[in-house]
C-alpha cells in the first residue's frame, strides 16, 4: 500500500506537500483563530454551566456544613478531613471512577466538580465564622438576640468576606477542573483542547477564554460582596 502523498491535485483530494499556511503548521494563527471563534461558543457555554452549577451546589452544601459545624464544634475536624480526602483524589481519576456509577454526561461531571469545591468553601466558612470578634457576639447577645438572629444579623455578615474569598478561589479552581469534564461525556472546552492539542493557537485560545471566564466570575463575586457588605465600603484602600 503506497503511502506517498496524493500527487494529483484538483478535485476532492488536495496535495498538501507545499503547505506552509499557519493552521497546517499548528502555529498560533491569530487571524485564523478570530475567523473561527464560533467553534468555541457551544463548548464555552457548556463550560460555564459546568462551572456555575457545581459552585452553586457546593456553596450551598459547604455553607450548611459550616453553619452546623460552627455550632457543633466537634464536627469541624471530621468534616475537614472528609472534604480534604475528597480533594486528594486526582481529578482525572474521579471523573473516570464515577463513570460506571453515574453514567456519562453532565451529572457525573457536576458531582465530581461539586465535591472539589467543598473543602475550599467549607474551610473558609469555618474560619470566617470563627474570626467574628467576640465583642460583637457579646454585644449582640447583650441586646437580646436569639441564636438564629445572632447568626444571620451578626456572624454571617461579618464572616462574609472570608466566605466570599473561598468562593472566589473555588470558582477559579472549578473553571480549571471543568476542563476534564469531557472525559465523562460532559463537553466543555476541555474537549477542544484535547482534540487538537498540537495546535498551539487552539490551546492558547482555550486558555485565554478560560482565564477571561475566571476573571469575570471573580469580578462578579466581588461585586456581589460589595453589595452585601455596605459598611465595608467606608474602608477605602
Amino acid at each position: 500500500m503506497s503511502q506517498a502523498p496524493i500527487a494529483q491535485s484538483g478535485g476532492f483530494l488536495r496535495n498538501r506537500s507545499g503547505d506552509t499556511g499557519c493552521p497546517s503548521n499548528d502555529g498560533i494563527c491569530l487571524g485564523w483563530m478570530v475567523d473561527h471563534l464560533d467553534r468555541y461558543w457551544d463548548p464555552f457555554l457548556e463550560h460555564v454551566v459546568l462551572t456555575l452549577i457545581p459552585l452553586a451546589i457546593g456553596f450551598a452544601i459547604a455553607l450548611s456544613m459550616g453553619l452546623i459545624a460552627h455550632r457543633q464544634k466537634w464536627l469541624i475536624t471530621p468534616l475537614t478531613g472528609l472534604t480534604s480526602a475528597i480533594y486528594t483524589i486526582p481529578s482525572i481519576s474521579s471523573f473516570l471512577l464515577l463513570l460506571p456509577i453515574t453514567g456519562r454526561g453532565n451529572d457525573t461531571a457536576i458531582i465530581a466538580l461539586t465535591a472539589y469545591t467543598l473543602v475550599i468553601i467549607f474551610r473558609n466558612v469555618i474560619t470566617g465564622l470563627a474570626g467574628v470578634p467576640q465583642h460583637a457576639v457579646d454585644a449582640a447577645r447583650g441586646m437580646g438576640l436569639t441564636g438564629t438572629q445572632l447568626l444571620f444579623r451578626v456572624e454571617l455578615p461579618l464572616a462574609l468576606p472570608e466566605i466570599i474569598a473561598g468562593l472566589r478561589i473555588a470558582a477559579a479552581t472549578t473553571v480549571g477542573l471543568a476542563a476534564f469534564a469531557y472525559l465523562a461525556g460532559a463537553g466543555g472546552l476541555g474537549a477542544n483542547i484535547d482534540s487538537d492539542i498540537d495546535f498551539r493557537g487552539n490551546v492558547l485560545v482555550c486558555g485565554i477564554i478560560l482565564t477571561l471566564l475566571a476573571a469575570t466570575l471573580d469580578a462578579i463575586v466581588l461585586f456581589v460582596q460589595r453589595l452585601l457588605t455596605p459598611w465595608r465600603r467606608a474602608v477605602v484602600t
Partner: protein
Amino acid sequence: MTRSSFRILFAMLAILVLGVFIAACGDDDKSSDTPTPAAQSTAPAKSGDIPADEKTANKIAPVDGAAGVSLSVGSKNFTEQYILGEIYIQALEAAGYKVKKDLDLGPERVAHAALVKGVVDAYPEYTGTALTSAFKVKVEDVPKDPQQAYEEAKAAYAKVGITALAPTPFENTYRLGITKATAEKLGNPTKISDLADKASTLTINGFPACRQRIDCLLGVQRTYGFEFKKFLPGEQKYQVLDNGDTDVAFVFTTDGPLSSGKYVVLEDDKDVFPPYNITFAVRDEAAKKLGPEGQKVITDVQKYMTPEIMQELNARVDLDKQERDKVAADYLQQFGFTS
C-alpha cells in the same frame, strides 16, 4: 479588589479585545479553503471523482418508518472516529432517522463497554481492535485476511448482542513513520526490516500502552527480532517526530499529517499487524429498528471510504482545521449521498 485595581483589570480586558480585533484585520494568513467540487471527469473514485449518474444514484432516500426511530451513535476519541461518526449520523438523518450524537466516548475499552451496556446504540469499531481488545483474541490468532477477520469479529459481537455491519474498504492500521531527514540518515529504508541493525540506536514513540501490546511495539519487537533503544510514551506523534524527540513513531495509515509528504512510512513486511477495517457495531435492538434499509444506508455510505479518501478527510480536520461535521457533510455531498 480596590477601585483602581478594577480599572486596571478593565483596561487589560479592553486592550485584549482591541488587540484581537487588530489582529483579525491585520493578519492575512492563508487559510485553506474547501477544494473546488469535482470536475465532470470519469476518473476512478480513488481520486474523489465519480460519474454523474452514479452520483445521482447514490442519493439517500428517506426510509419508511424512519421518523419514529431514534438511536444514539457514538465514536471513539480521535479524528477519524469523529469523522466516521459524523458521516454515519448525517447519513442516517438524511434517511429520516432521529439520531442522538454521542461522539468522544473515550478509548476502545470505554467505548465497547458503553456499547455493551447500552449507554450508546452504535459506534464504528475496527475489526482488529474489536477482536484483540474487546474479545481478548491473541493478535497472532487474528486472521490476516480482512474479510475473515470481519467474520470472526461479527461472530464475537453476535454473542454479546451486537450486530456488526459489513466492513469498509479501507483499513487504518499501524505503521512505523519517520521524517524524511531521518530516512536519509538511515539509508532510505522502505520496510520495517530495514531498521534491523539500526534499531538499537533509535528512539520510538507510541501511545503509553503501545509498549506492552502485541499489536504495537511488543509485537513488532518480537516478530522482527530487534529492540529499539528507548520507548517514548506520548500522544503527540507528529510533534515529537518534527522536533526530534523521537526517531521513529507508530503512525496510523490514514493519519492526516501523512499527506503533507514530510514523512516516510515503512511497510510491515512481516505482517505483524492484524486487519483494521471499520465495521458499524450496533446493538441488536437498534439494528432491528434500523431495519434492512437503514443498515443499507450505512453500508452504502461506506462505499467510497478508500485509504486515500479517508486520509484526505483526516487531513482536512487535522491540517486544514476544518470542522468535523463540515468535512463529513462534504464527503456525503461529494459522492451524491446528500445534496
